[in-house]
């Protein structure tokens, strides 16, 4: 296999890997821009992956089978938004510390998905999942075609969401509100912006995106559900937001970097180069720590009130 072919394979593998990180990372960007650090992302993704898996699993063979994936994705988005609102209740209304509350939400989502999975499904079972949808014409282009235009619809959707989220965050009134409640909630409050409401909305949107990311994992990437399907991707997505400097485009860069590293590792294994499997699996986690140690200056442009509950009745 030539080097060119090898690199092409890495790219073809890497692009779809990045989608779950990208979707969750975009949602988390909105959360953090609004000043809330949602570590429960991992748990929301687990729930999203599980509920998305249910319709294709139970509706196989029924007349509704064609819509099963769509229903699954919709359910995942709804479940994610619901958990996002639950998190908002705890950290916005009750002003609980966000780090530990996020760990609580992670356990809750992960545990609930595992419990329900064992009760209703049992063992690991595959579903047909979302099939690839090559874009006519474009997918026949050399190199670019297989890398960019030969994937399932969620991949295209995820990458289209990057400019959409950039626009939402930086060019719309709601985006301005989100950024203001994450940077200077007191000033936003004095201008009549309802800080709590904006944070609730941001968390619901972030939760919906995490749910969608989970649905992508179970329906499009793995085409099955297991307890450890998420394997830390929710936490990696949170780290990517730091890496991407709270900007959707940066988050996309981070997601691609991670997934390409993972694809590279897989391709090296497939190519038969001997390397302990466990060390290969460690790679993305080590990469997160390395990346986080390199992005300290990013604080300057991040939401300055990140992680701090806002109490409008508190005196300064």
């Amino acid at each position, binding site marked *: 296999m030539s080097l060119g072919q090898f690199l092409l394979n890495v790219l073809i593998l890497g692009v779809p890997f990045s989608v779950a990180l990208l979707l969750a990372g975009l949602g988390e960007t909105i959360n953090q821009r609004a000043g809330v650090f949602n*570590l429960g992302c991992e*748990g929301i993704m687990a729930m999203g992956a599980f509920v998305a898996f249910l319709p294709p699993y139970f509706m196989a063979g029924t007349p509704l089978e064609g819509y099963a994936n769509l229903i699954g994705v919709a359910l995942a988005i709804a479940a994610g938004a619901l958990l996002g609102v*639950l998190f908002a209740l*705890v950290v916005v209304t*009750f*002003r*609980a*510390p966000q*780090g*530990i*509350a*996020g*760990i*609580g*939400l*992670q*356990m*809750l*989502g*992960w*545990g*609930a998905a*595992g*419990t*329900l999975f*064992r*009760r*209703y499904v049992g063992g690991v079972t595959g579903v047909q999942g979302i099939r690839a949808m090559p874009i006519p014409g474009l997918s026949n282009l050399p190199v670019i075609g297989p890398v960019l235009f030969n994937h399932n619809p969620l991949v295209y959707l995820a990458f289209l969401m990057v400019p959409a989220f950039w626009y939402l965050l930086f060019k719309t009134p709601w985006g301005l509100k989100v950024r203001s409640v994450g940077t200077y909630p007191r000033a936003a409050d004095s201008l009549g912006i309802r800080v709590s409401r904006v944070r609730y909305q941001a968390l619901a949107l972030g939760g919906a995106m995490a749910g969608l990311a989970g649905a992508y994992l179970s329906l499009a990437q793995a085409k099955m559900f297991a*307890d450890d399907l998420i*394997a*830390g991707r929710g*936490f990696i997505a*949170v*780290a990517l937001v*730091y890496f991407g400097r709270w900007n959707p485009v940066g988050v996309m860069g981070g997601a691609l970097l991670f997934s390409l590293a993972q694809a590279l590792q897989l391709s090296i294994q497939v190519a038969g180069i001997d390397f*302990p499997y*466990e*060390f290969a*699996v*460690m790679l993305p*986690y*080590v990469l*997160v*720590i390395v990346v*986080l*140690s390199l992005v*300290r200056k990013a*604080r300057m442009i991040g939401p300055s009130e990140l992680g701090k509950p806002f109490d409008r*009745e508190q005196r300064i």
Partner: protein
Amino acid sequence: MNRPGRLAYNAAVVVAAAAAAMGIGAIVLAAVGADIMKAYAVILTEPLKDLIGVTEIVVRAIPLSLIALGIAVAFRSGILNIGAEGQMMMGILASSATAIALGSLPKPVLVPLAILAGAAGGAAWGGLAGLLKARLEVNEILSTVMLNYIAAQFYTFLLRGPMMDPEELVMGSGTPQTLRMPRSAWLDRLIPGTRLHTGVFIVLALAVVVFVLLWRTPVGFRMRAAGAEAKAARYAGIKVQRYLVVAMLLSGAFAGTAGAVEILGVHRRAIEGVSGGYGFTGIVVALFGGLHPAGIIPASLFFGLLLLGADMTQRLADVPANMVLVLQGAIILAIVSARQFMNNPYAQDRLARRLAKLFGRPERYRAGPDCPDPSDSPDPCLADERPDDGASGEASR
């Protein structure tokens, strides 16, 4: 609000939090189609029905309380240690390697040595996250979570490779486990026929050590000061960064000790799944125990009960054992929410005013139109408000 009123208020907050946590659990139980009351009854009472059950609760409480003590040290110093799971695995590896390599040593030497090795392994893994936080401002939650995943892979790697029992290779079954520990490294069992081991005494001793360290020594004072208000501590000349690292080293050492005690006392060889979520449950135990040794010991027993009970629901109430994760998550969310209301004079006043409105009692603080602005100097109109503030100042920060 007067004193009985405050007590009633705090009790109401606790009851509401417990109801919320059990309510979330009930939703999931209902979703799996279980009998909710029966499932809770099994979880909470079934393990207490015989001696084996009770001792098994204590066996689970031993690693839980050790981990929770370490997490309490870290939380009090202002750093969230989510990495106990990984630190425990590192402790297990270090401890079992020591015990197997030095198996010829006499018992009084080998046991402490193996436990210290475990502590050192955990401390190294925890201290790494502390250093990253202190030097490079890496968020400790993310770094410890990542270190958990790395440790888990490293653990499997060693158990399947360099540290695997050679007999497994000969027999060909390939179970990932180390050699059995030499008898001289074992922690003795206390009651024949049960797994209760002498680790209990280690827990009790270390609980006292944590109390003395945090509340009776200058180092502990500085650690708590750094955790309570880092800026103020820095102005007072406390090297906050250094105490972050110290806190994480200690926290990791406790988790490593938990791992060492668990294999020396219970399993007697490193196998897969020893840590089995203890690192995460330890966080809940630490919070539930109020980040204080005197609370952590009973809390660890309660969660030992919960873990064992959840195992039993699988058989008796057809509820998967993962249910315990749901309950733990719900308990964390309930505790952190409730803490904002406990001893909070502001929320108490608001509730008192709302109750007064509902039941038609005259509102307080509106004694008459001739009172000046209450934000100014002390005034006879506000005389009944002041003594309350000092008593409940801690929770309002």
